[in-house]
């Protein structure tokens, strides 16, 4: 996958590019807004990672220009600014996701993967399947094999999010943002408890567990 990194902190850029390359991506980099914009407009990228504060042209400006030119590459904003209403500004300017520095690389990678997935042609799914776990989005029924699973509304949403990102790492922050719509870190890790509850419902009594904990990163649902 091709990724564009626009970051003026060269040390941070080096680590970021190296990390992404090690994860198997093809990466182009730029250290200022102008270069970043011309790269974004001249080559096809699957994701662009853009810092909010850049020399020559501010990150918001770069994305606004990209959108102006009809470029729909998903954009992940990186920001070292305070975050209260900065996130709103970033998303309004055309960004697709927003990550505050300092971030964990696994968090960034998980979000980049999620953005890439979003890029693939959207077919309206009414049914999600992972292994023998089956989620009907219309009747809101969940089944594992023959056995129906009774889910609370929020558990349903949690499972739906995990299954839409099957095979991908989903971080706690991503779950909190997407399933609960909270953009803050609760002092205690409440997400873990929700996950173990969900796990008890979908995996307990079955030979092959579907919901896996990825150490130091988050969770993943996958068949094998």
């Amino acid at each position, binding site marked *: 996958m091709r990724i564009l990194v626009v970051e003026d902190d060269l040390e941070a850029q080096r680590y970021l590019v190296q990390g992404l390359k090690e994860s198997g991506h093809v990466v182009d980099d730029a250290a200022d807004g102008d270069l970043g914009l011309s790269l974004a407009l001249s080559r096809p990228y699957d994701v662009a990672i853009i810092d909010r504060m850049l020399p020559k042209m501010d990150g918001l400006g770069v994305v606004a220009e990209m959108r102006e030119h009809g470029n729909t590459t998903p954009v992940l904003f990186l920001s070292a600014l305070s975050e209260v209403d900065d996130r709103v500004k970033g998303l309004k300017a055309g960004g697709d996701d927003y990550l505050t520095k300092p971030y964990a690389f696994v968090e960034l990678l998980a979000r980049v993967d999620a953005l890439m997935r979003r890029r693939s042609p959207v077919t309206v799914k009414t049914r999600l399947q992972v292994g023998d776990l089956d989620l009907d989005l219309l009747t809101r029924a969940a089944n594992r094999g023959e056995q129906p699973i009774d889910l609370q509304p929020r558990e349903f949403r949690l499972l739906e999010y995990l299954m839409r990102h099957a095979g991908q790492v989903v971080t706690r922050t991503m779950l909190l943002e997407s399933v609960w719509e*909270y953009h803050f870190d609760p002092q205690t890790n409440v997400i873990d408890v929700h996950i173990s509850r969900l796990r008890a419902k979908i995996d307990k009594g079955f030979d092959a567990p579907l919901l896996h904990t990825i150490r130091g990163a988050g969770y993943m649902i996958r068949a094998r």
Partner: protein
Amino acid sequence: MRTNFRLLRTQAFRIVLVYGLLFAFSVSSLLFFTYWNTRRTLDDQTDQTIEAEITGLSEQYTRLGVRGLEESLTNRQLHPGAGQALYILTDSAHRFLAGNLDSWPSITTDPGNFVEFAYERRTNSGLETRRARGRLFPISTLLGDYYLLVAEDVHDRDLIQGMFTTTLPWTVALILLFGLLGGALMSRNMLRRLDSINRTSGEIVAGNFTRRVPVSGAHDEFDVLAENLNRMLDRIERLMKGLREVTDSVAHDLRTPLNRLRQRLEQSQARLQAAGSDASEIERAIAETDSLIATFNALLLIAETDAGTARGAMSPLDLSSVAADVSELYEPLAEEKNVILTLIRPSGFHPGDTVIEGNRSLVSQALANLVDNAIKYTPPGGRVTIRPGLHFQGADISVADSGPGIPLEERSRVVERFVRLEASRSSPGTGLGLALVAAVAHFHNAELLLEDNAPGLKATLRFPRPAVRLIPPAETAKLPQIPSRAAAE
């Protein structure tokens, strides 16, 4: 109706009212003095005329005796131009001897003083009762006592007096009427100007720092006030912008090196793990870095929230739904700790009663902190209760637990940054949780109350009533409420 009452309460109206009363008082005093003076002058004139007459008549008497006096009086009566002078001479039994009065009038005053009395005068249309003022003059002779009364008609004086007594109340009434009307007009005008200033200040307090007080161009005191306020606002706006820039650069300048630090640690960790070495030290260093970052983020958020520079999305926010969401988020955690978490929705609410003007993220975070603390400090088997409710000035939300509580003398201290009570030092936490709740309360003009729940702590966030009744936000995007643990009171 309400504006009318407001008019009566304005300072301008009160000033005009007091001034009107004072003015009415001074005008009536002036009128009264004029009246009194006029009357005195008229009386003096009358008295002098009477004195002169008496002097003349006493000369006659000295020269010609009582007979001469009688004659003189009869002559005078015929003398033209003596229309207003009245005389009567009587013997000791008040029997008429001479003069133009028919009979001795009824007087009770001592002789020698000036007296007033009523008499009857013949006119074309019959008899007429009029008032007169005169002087009694007793004459003692060897043949017996006589009484002489010389008087002047004072009808005109009485007319003037009547004029004054009828004019005075009318004058006062008119002064008050016009005064009050003028006052009302003035106050209304002032109110209008003040209202526009108040409206603008309200909008600015609500976060719209670009608003300015309108200047009418009349160059009056209100314009001077408006200009001064606007200058102040310019300054505040500049300061706020400066503060925001400082916060932003502090954030940027600290986060950038923290970011590099974390990246370096991650890389070393990856390298060590790839080489099959023990990376647990690095892992601990990463955990320390993360808690440092969490503290820094919390501090920055508190600073921004406290300063009010973080004017994010303020929107109508239903405390009941915020409570339901947070309760739902923490319910599994409480269950795992064997704490009963209950969301109480008291009956008798109208939808919209618990709607405030607020920032969803901040209020949710504040409530999450309170619930988090409550669950953390409540021993297994205890209970935590979340209750959105109403107080007489607006909506509130409380979190009550059955934990150890906070001693009274510590309650004001725990909302400060980094303050942790001895009892809780061993448990994880930054010591910023309640400080953030206090900052969020401050941001929303709300009050944070910490009370004894006997046993335990009851923390309440009291939000002020919004200026206008807010309609709860559309619930379409929301999940159906989770009924499992919600109890109705």
